[in-house]
């Protein structure tokens, strides 16, 4: 208790020190007066009384000092004084201070920005209750690639029901699927993304609704038409109406009632942008035996606290075994294996290597910035060597000096850190929109306390580490030599020079590694842009539209629109060919199972998927997809003629190897489904289905007019094909000009129809290349920054060594050296640093190549061209950096210089 009272007293007295000083003075004066009075009484003279009193008292100054130490918080006040001194010293050399603070601000800011991405995507837990217990459950089906490489695995509708029966290891399980609805009844009709969910999904995720309620299992079984809104939808489409519960809306012309609103930041499925949720309400068709092979649903579950994922998988395997046991003979060879993955892990798995690489790259830049700062501080310490020597001679301890240099460095780094946080905030605000589309959980990226604390910690660590360099210089100060030395400025001793050179060599090595990585990534990007896309995107305009049921309730109306559109577009001046397709190349994301006549799957019978699309009109001609064999579709391929299909080269090679695919047959769906056979009439070149740097994908095309027959039912009359299409127009005119013409044509047929995604095909391809482009740009920017900083480092080292060797240069020139020799001398010292740095850098690049491998495309990590170019670049830059000081040294007038010394 005493210590607490003492501490409080000390703190209080810090603020009243002047008053307390006055008090003490008065008290001491009184003491002396009392002593003098007593002495006088005893008969001393006035003079003697005073002297005796003072002697008896003891040293007044020392007593005052001891009193103050006892009274206040001495170390705090001393630290405050040191900080004030350091700030004053920094203010006296503003150029150095600004450079140092800016360097660190950029380094710490960039690192914090990347860390905020890493934090938001990889480190932050999902925004559900107890998210570590959330897992996905899906099937791996023999013969396919479901459930691997970041795919959680899909399930069929009957399996959603059967798996939900597992109660041993799961607290609850739910199934869901993404759907798209036309939302009407509140203003303009809109196409929105939504999801059908079993009510158990809400209990799995454990998030309570903000308003109202979620739907109940009874509503799911009874197929009640209720909907739960997302927070964003409630805010924007319903204007945050507090009475929104009970509102009637129409989804695909069918009435639904709003029963609840979810809280802000509730997002499920992750990154799907769902605006509302409706009950799963399986239809009879979905649960029918024919649907046993439609793996269209996903599942999410919450493990019991004591269960492991292995146990959950075993439980699911038991259910799967029963399902397989109940398979009809047609499916007897299909094997399914359930897999369980942690929800967060499966979401970020693909992004993890990229983010790790980004973080490494930015840390490298920060390292170089710190090394530069350490060098700057070292130079400053060297130039203050004389002052340090004096202080050491006067009795300052090494600890004090070290403490002061570290303090100065900390002031720089903390200012840099605070400024860096600001820069990071700006970068995050601007850059969030430019993040690649395939980066998951981008909504969680923000500048929050974690990032700020990280930045400050970084500042503290860099401050202390960088401050050690000048501290080291202070330690090595030879007091005698410095004081005796006639030089006004400090000159660098051998140890200092070696330290600075070592720092610069490290910088060059690190910069070289990053430059190499940038070069490899740029080469990969160039390779990707030269890939044969399988079509020619130049001079092609594209647009997308969706015919809503309100205006186009029948197939006939949809067909009429499509035909009108094709006709009018082909009549535009300059147009060469027009087509419609259900999905554009490089933007495709759908897969359909099929059966090829005469193909036996070596992986065992199972699910064979391929990419697919439906086309209308002259799609292939418009895209200039080369025809390998057979023919394109013609107008004669309609609902009444033979069912035809066109396959691509990869499809033909894979499923009918070394045979002519023309005349072969295939049908949609698994063998058991017995959809009608389609005959192959053409084989086209491989078109890039996903991204240009992915391999070839098997794909087949169907004429949209034959879709109804191709599926062979069960489809009701309400299913309409061809209502959501992409227009593809090839013209002799530049595609940008065509955009307005296309818009005008669509408006002339239906003025109300919105035309979306109007862009050139080249823009579409460019969008698909965006993720790789993003990586390349970021890493190259970091590489550039690293190289600039390293060059700055070389320059400052050479310049400083030249400046401190002016005397030597002058003497050399006086003794007969030519200017050219001086220049050569200095350039060679710069090149020596570069050589050692380059050697170390290449060794480091070799070690780092494994990190880079997943991101390279048709480039080896040891590509000789890139390595050679990088090495040459480093040498050239070192040369350039040393050139300026070299020429300055050579232009010195020897007599002038010697006189100044």
């Amino acid at each position, binding site marked *: 208790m005493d210590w607490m*009272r003492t501490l409080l007293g*000390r703190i209080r007295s810090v603020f009243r020190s002047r008053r307390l000083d006055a*008090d003490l003075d008065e*008290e001491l004066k009184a003491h002396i007066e009392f002593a003098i009075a007593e002495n006088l009484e005893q008969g001393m003279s006035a003079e003697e009384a005073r002297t005796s009193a003072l002697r008896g008292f003891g*040293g007044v100054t020392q*007593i005052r000092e001891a009193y103050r130490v*006892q009274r206040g918080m001495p170390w705090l006040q001393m630290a405050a004084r040191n900080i004030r001194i350091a700030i004053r010293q920094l203010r006296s050399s503003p150029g150095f201070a600004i450079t140092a603070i800016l360097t660190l601000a950029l380094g710490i800011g960039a690192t914090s920005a990347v860390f905020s991405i890493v934090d938001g995507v990889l480190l932050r837990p999902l925004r559900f209750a107890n998210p570590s217990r959330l897992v996905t459950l899906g099937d791996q089906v023999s013969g396919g690639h479901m459930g691997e490489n970041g795919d959680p695995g899909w399930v069929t509708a009957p399996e959603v029901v059967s798996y939900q029966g597992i109660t041993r290891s799961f607290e609850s399980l739910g199934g869901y699927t993404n759907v798209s609805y036309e939302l009407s009844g509140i203003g303009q009709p809109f196409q929105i993304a939504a999801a059908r969910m079993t009510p158990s999904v809400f209990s799995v995720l454990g998030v309570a609704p903000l308003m109202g309620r979620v739907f109940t299992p009874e509503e799911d079984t009874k197929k009640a038409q209720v909907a739960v809104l997302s927070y964003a939808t409630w805010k924007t489409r319903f204007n945050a109406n507090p009475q929104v519960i009970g509102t009637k809306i129409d989804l695909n012309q069918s009435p639904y009632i709003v029963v609840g609103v979810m809280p802000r930041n509730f997002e499920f499925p992750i990154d799907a942008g769902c605006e509302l949720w409706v009950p799963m309400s399986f239809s009879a068709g979905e649960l029918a035996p024919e649907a046993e092979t439609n793996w269209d649903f996903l599942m999410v579950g919450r493990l019991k606290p004591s269960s492991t994922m292995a146990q959950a998988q075993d439980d699911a395997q038991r259910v799967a075994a029963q399902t397989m046991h109940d398979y009809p003979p047609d499916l007897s060879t299909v094997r399914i294996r359930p897999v369980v993955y942690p929800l967060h892990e499966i979401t970020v798995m693909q992004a993890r290597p990229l983010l790790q690489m980004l973080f490494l790259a930015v840390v490298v830049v920060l390292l170089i910035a710190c090394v530069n700062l350490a060098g700057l501080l070292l130079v400053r310490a060297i130039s203050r060597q004389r002052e340090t020597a004096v202080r050491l001679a006067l009795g300052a301890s090494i600890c004090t000096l070290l403490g002061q240099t570290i303090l100065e460095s900390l002031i720089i780094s903390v200012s840099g850190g605070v400024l860096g946080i600001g820069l990071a905030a700006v970068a995050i605000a601007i850059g969030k929109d430019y993040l690649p589309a395939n980066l998951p959980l981008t909504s969680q990226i923000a500048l929050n306390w974690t990032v700020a604390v990280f930045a400050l910690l970084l500042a503290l660590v860099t401050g202390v580490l960088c401050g050690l360099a000048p501290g080291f210089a202070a330690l090595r100060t030879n007091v005698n030599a410095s004081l005796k030395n006639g030089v006004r400025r400090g000159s660098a001793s051998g140890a200092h020079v070696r330290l600075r050179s070592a720092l610069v060599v490290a910088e060059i090595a690190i910069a070289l590694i990053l430059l190499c990585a940038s070069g490899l990534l740029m080469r990969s990007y160039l390779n990707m842009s030269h890939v044969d896309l399988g079509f020619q995107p130049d001079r092609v305009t594209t647009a997308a539209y969706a015919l809503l049921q309100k205006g186009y309730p029948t197939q006939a109306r949809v067909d009429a629109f499509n035909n009108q559109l094709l006709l009018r577009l082909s009549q535009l001046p300059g147009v060469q060919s027009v087509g419609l397709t259900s999905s554009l190349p490089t933007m495709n994301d759908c897969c359909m199972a099929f059966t090829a006549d005469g193909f036996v799957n070596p992986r065992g019978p199972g699910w064979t998927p391929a990419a697919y699309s439906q086309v209308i009109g002259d799609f292939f001609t418009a895209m200039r997809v080369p025809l390998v064999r057979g023919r394109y579709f013609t107008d004669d391929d309609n609902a009444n003629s033979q069912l035809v299909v066109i396959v691509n080269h990869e499809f033909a090679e894979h499923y009918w190897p070394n045979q002519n695919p023309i005349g072969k047959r295939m049908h949609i769906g698994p063998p058991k489904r017995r959809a009608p056979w389609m005959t192959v009439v053409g084989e086209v070149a491989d078109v890039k289905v996903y991204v240009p740097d992915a391999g070839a994908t098997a794909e087949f095309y169907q004429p949209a007019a034959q879709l109804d027959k191709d599926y062979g039912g069960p489809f009701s009359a309400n299913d309409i094909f061809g209502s959501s299409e992409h227009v593809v127009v090839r013209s002799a005119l530049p595609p940008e000009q065509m955009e307005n013409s296309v818009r005008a044509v669509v408006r002339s047929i239906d003025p109300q129809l919105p035309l979306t995604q109007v862009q050139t095909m080249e823009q579409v391809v460019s969008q698909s290349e965006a993720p790789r482009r993003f990586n390349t740009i970021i890493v190259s920017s970091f590489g550039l920054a690293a190289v600039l900083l390293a060059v700055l480092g070389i320059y400052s080292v050479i310049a400083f060594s030249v400046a401190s060797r002016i005397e030597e240069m002058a003497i050399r020139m006086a003794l007969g050296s030519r200017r050219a020799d001086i220049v050569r001398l200095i350039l060679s010292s710069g090149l020596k640093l570069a050589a050692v740095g380059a050697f170390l850098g290449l060794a480091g690049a070799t070690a780092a190549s494994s990190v880079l491998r997943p991101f390279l495309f048709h480039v080896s990590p040891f590509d000789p061209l890139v390595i050679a170019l990088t090495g040459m670049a480093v040498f050239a830059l070192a040369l350039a950096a040393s050139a300026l000081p070299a020429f300055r040294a050579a232009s010195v007038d020897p007599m002038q210089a010697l006189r100044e010394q």
Partner: protein
Amino acid sequence: MGEQKSDVLQGTLDLMVLKTLETMGPLHGYGIARRIEQVSGNALTLSQGTIYPALLRLEQRGWIRSEWGTSEMNRRAKFYSLTRIGRKKIEDETENWERVSATMARILAPGS
């Protein structure tokens, strides 16, 4: 020849101050210092000034309190007096001191 001058440990100075205040009642700094000198029979010489950090220490702990007053000579001076806690502490510190000095005596006794 002359008085034995010995350094006075911090803790013992505190105890002496407390005891003085207990005996003499409220007193100013000079008075306390002179009293200690007198009682010790001038065997102890402490620079009188060292009393002030000690007084501050005791005041910070809350064992004594101070207030400005007027001395007999009509001079303004700071007077110190014991607090309730301080009064209690005298017993504890006295006990402590007796235990320490007894132990020291045993250790230093010949033939131990």
